[in-house]
């Protein structure tokens, strides 16, 4: 095999672009600011990326099947606030409170999956509805006020294991597990098959509905996990937590090479995509660009990435 064919094979799921983009950003950032490559800032970037990356993992998998999940930010909030309320107001032990939050996230995701796969509502509508319901549910549950001040043992989640943030290790573990399932399990293969040719996959007996249900459920579970991680990091659950995070999650996946038409991409790429988004935010902060402009910048990046990366993935038909 010649070099170009080999390169194409390696880049089949388009991991090279986000890696190159990250390398470039790191060079730019470290020349802009001497603070960028300090251990302090690196640790900061790693804890920041953890939460976006957790959401992006679920999002990427949904997009791989050809869908989209707009509810991950709101499901983050409801998962995080349920865990917080269980701990603070109901006096439930930490593991059970975490389990409660995760269960709520998985249920919300499963509802998305049912709406999409059984009722056949387009995923952007079904998850938009879930976004509103989950956000409203969070506000009702918390009376619209933050729930704050958790036990030290819970906040320890946002601490460090040696030099590395525990949140980052959690996220990294989730990614390793998930990439292995995508590459080596039947579930992973079906995710790509459903995204590549849903009807064809159904015709050979793939249970497309179950694959979609599982994918959306996992996305909800990841979002709730992100919410619990954010609780630990901020020592509070804000009812507005995660607003706009669906944008970051989708952008991370798309920058990471996940094709919006489904079937192409990987979690490795998505991880680097999430790093690109985070480092970019970091650079904009270092440049003292205000939060409002950062929103605009992120939107533009998503649009540009979606346009430029959707080229060149056409298969011979």
């Amino acid at each position, binding site marked *: 095999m010649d070099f170009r064919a080999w390169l194409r094979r390696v880049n089949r799921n388009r991991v090279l672009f986000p890696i190159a983009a990250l390398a470039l950003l790191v060079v730019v950032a470290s020349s802009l600011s001497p603070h960028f490559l300090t251990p302090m800032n690196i640790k900061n970037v790693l804890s920041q990326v953890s939460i976006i990356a957790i959401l992006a993992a679920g999002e990427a998998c949904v997009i791989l099947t050809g869908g989209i999940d707009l509810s991950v930010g709101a499901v983050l909030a409801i998962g995080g606030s349920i865990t917080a309320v269980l701990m603070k107001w109901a006096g439930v032990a930490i593991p059970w409170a975490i389990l409660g939050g995760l269960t709520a996230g998985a249920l919300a995701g499963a509802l998305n999956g049912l709406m999409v796969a059984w009722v056949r509502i387009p995923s952007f509508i079904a998850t938009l509805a879930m976004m509103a319901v989950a956000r409203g549910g969070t506000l009702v549950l918390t009376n619209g006020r933050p729930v704050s001040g958790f036990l030290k043992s819970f906040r320890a989640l946002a601490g460090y294991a040696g030099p590395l943030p525990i949140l980052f290790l959690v996220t990294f573990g989730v990614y390793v597990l998930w990439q292995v399932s995508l590459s080596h*399990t039947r579930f992973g293969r079906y995710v790509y098959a459903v995204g590549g040719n849903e009807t064809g996959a159904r015709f050979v007996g793939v249970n497309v509905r179950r694959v979609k249900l599982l994918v959306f459920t996992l996305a909800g579970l990841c979002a709730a996990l992100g919410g619990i991680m954010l609780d630990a990091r901020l020592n509070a659950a804000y009812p507005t937590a995660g607003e706009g995070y669906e944008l970051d999650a989708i952008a991370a996946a798309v920058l990471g090479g996940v094709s919006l038409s489904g079937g192409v991409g990987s979690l490795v790429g998505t991880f680097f995509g999430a790093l690109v988004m985070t480092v970019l935010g970091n650079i904009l902060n270092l440049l003292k660009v205000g939060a409002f402009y950062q929103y605009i910048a992120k939107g533009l990046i998503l649009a540009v990435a979606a346009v430029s990366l959707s080229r060149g993935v056409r298969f011979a038909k």
Partner: protein
Amino acid sequence: MAPDVRPWVKMRGIHKWFGGVHALRGVDFSVRRGEVVGLIGDNGAGKSTLIKILSGVFPPDKGEILIEGRRVRFRSPKDAKEHGIETVYQELALVDNLDVPANIFLGREPALVGGGSLLALLHKGRMVREARALLARLKVNIGDLGALAGELSGGQRQTVAIARALYTEPKLLIMDEPTAALAVQEARKVLDLVRNLKERDIGVVFISHTLQEVFAVADRIVILRKGEKVGDFPVEELTVDDAVKLMVGGD
């Protein structure tokens, strides 16, 4: 071996509506083991609809299917496969973003652990080995098995699709326009393959718009027009001209 004269599979009084379109109007259809049945008819006559019912894609709105005299009901293509009916589809044979072994084993992947569950670990090595052996048995040369289906030529894609259908040694193979996208040379390979199946006692339903191909390979020809069966002849008793007349109607 004396040919078994009873049909292996029999469809009786099949009706299908798509909204207001009455796509099949009480069609009877049967295939014996080792028999090649050519199914012909104009565009929209209902050929694809009929074989999709036979392969479990959707149920008939009326009518029944019998295998070896026993009534069966297919809720999915998987049900039909379990009864030994495999299909090569006209339009959506392969998943373009998966490689050749992944396509051949899609829906029935061998597992290292976990059996048939969704979370089973795939036995990738075995899929590659068996895919290579299967293609060799069928004398099909794909070259690089790691290529994605979307990177293959039309002929290669079709042979992969057929190989996939033959992997389980089905009793009946349904082919909906398997030669439509192929050059003459490649189409001939498909026809050879069909004759080969006959020797192995596999029944075949063969749909094609090229009547010469159908006459060259079929034992019996069934003609549909506007959802109705208008002819069912042993190939010796039918001429191409008569077939065309029956297809388009208006004698």
